[in-house]
């Protein structure tokens, strides 16, 4: 029963990937192959390329990648909270409870402190 639910998804994956593969294969089979000198060089508006694109250069926003990891893990924690929220809001004796809201308030407060720190350190800006 559990695995049954995945069969249509598996079929969808096979069909989507198969169709994509078919398009790529058709294009490679049908399309012409011509060799011309200009095609062997990366496009840079007609001038000859200077240096390699693999050379070192300054990547702005590299800190954002690190921040993304942290905040996305936070998001991964929030999804279980969201789906269990109804259960967390009911007191064991019946009646409403603020337990679920309380834990999220604490969690978001920590996140806000972190965001403020990052903001003040100018990790999200250009300079």
């Amino acid at each position, binding site marked *: 029963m559990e695995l049954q*639910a995945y*069969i*249509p*998804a598996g*079929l*969808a*994956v096979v*069909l*989507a*990937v198969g*169709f*994509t593969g078919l*398009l*790529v294969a*058709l*294009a*490679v089979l*049908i*399309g*012409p*192959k011509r060799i011309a000198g200009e*095609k062997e*060089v*990366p*496009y*840079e*508006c007609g001038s000859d*390329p200077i240096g390699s*694109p*693999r050379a070192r250069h300054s*990547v*702005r*926003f590299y800190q*954002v*990648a690190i*921040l*993304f990891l942290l*905040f*996305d893990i936070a*998001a991964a924690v*929030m*999804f279980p*909270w*969201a*789906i269990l*929220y109804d259960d967390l*809001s009911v007191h064991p004796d019946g009646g*409403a409870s*603020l337990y*679920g*809201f309380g834990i*999220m*308030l604490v969690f*978001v407060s920590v996140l*806000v402190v972190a*965001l403020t720190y990052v*903001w003040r350190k100018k990790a*999200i*800006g*250009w300079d």
Partner: protein
Amino acid sequence: MTTGGQIVVIIMIMGGALSLAAGLIWVERRLLGLWQDRYGPNRVGPFGILQPLADAIKLLFKEDWSPPFADRSVFLIAPAVIFATALLSLAVVPVAPGIGVVAEWNVGLLFFLAMASLGAYSVILGGWASNSKYSLLGGLRAAAQMLSYEVFMGLSLAGVVVLAGSFSLAEIVRAQADLWYVVPQFLGFVVFLIAGLAETRRLPFDLPESETELIAGFHTEYSGMSFGLFFVGEYIGIITISALITTFFLGGWHGPLLPPLVWFLLKTLVLIAVFVLFRAAMPRPRFDQLMAWGWKILLPITLINLLVTGAVVALP
């Protein structure tokens, strides 16, 4: 449902999306023409309606050039990834009660988020594998933009999950029978719409492509069907995001009088028109403005939305 029936449903949904994408390309070009005081495509078929078909045939018969300086295997796979993931995201969308590939799936929402994240790889890898400076810059921009906007794309849906109590998209639509979530989750709706625009790299978020500064950004070196896959993948992405906004916030198939499928298509088409209007009406922001906007405005709004939703649900 039998396996044969499932295959028919999958082919109908994916085929429908592909035809809609072709129609969308024509509609967008005609509308842009109208708004920019020119004709747009009007030669192939009545009103140029067969133009996308002609383009597809042309792209198939053009050379699919993978340059010798590129990383060939990655270069070939990258456009296929965005096309396949965009098609697959549609699998979790319930188009009408009981019709959808895996609409009842209890991980539907997470599956969509996973596909959206995988789609981002395509642009980044395509930009890197091209081994051209413009492509690399486009790919780097795509990386930073995706990383930033993916965080709140997920979080803006947490409010919907709290209200519906389920990850299943069919369940979320059924929970909106009385009230569409666009009302209690208005902030979530706005953030998801913006994150969706960023995810599909449409104006005003087309910085990875930005043809006025980076030639064509990440797909500068692409040609033939590989370019076509990037191009159609973008349009299928718009359809997917519109269908998902309809599902999460606009009540999916719910509506009076007309059949459910018609309501679903109608809402999706209106959202697609909004996406086209955005492209015609909005300028492209500077890159640091884009990033600052995401982290300093949208992320706090999302967190506030989550807390307010929690408070309203918990307090009787």
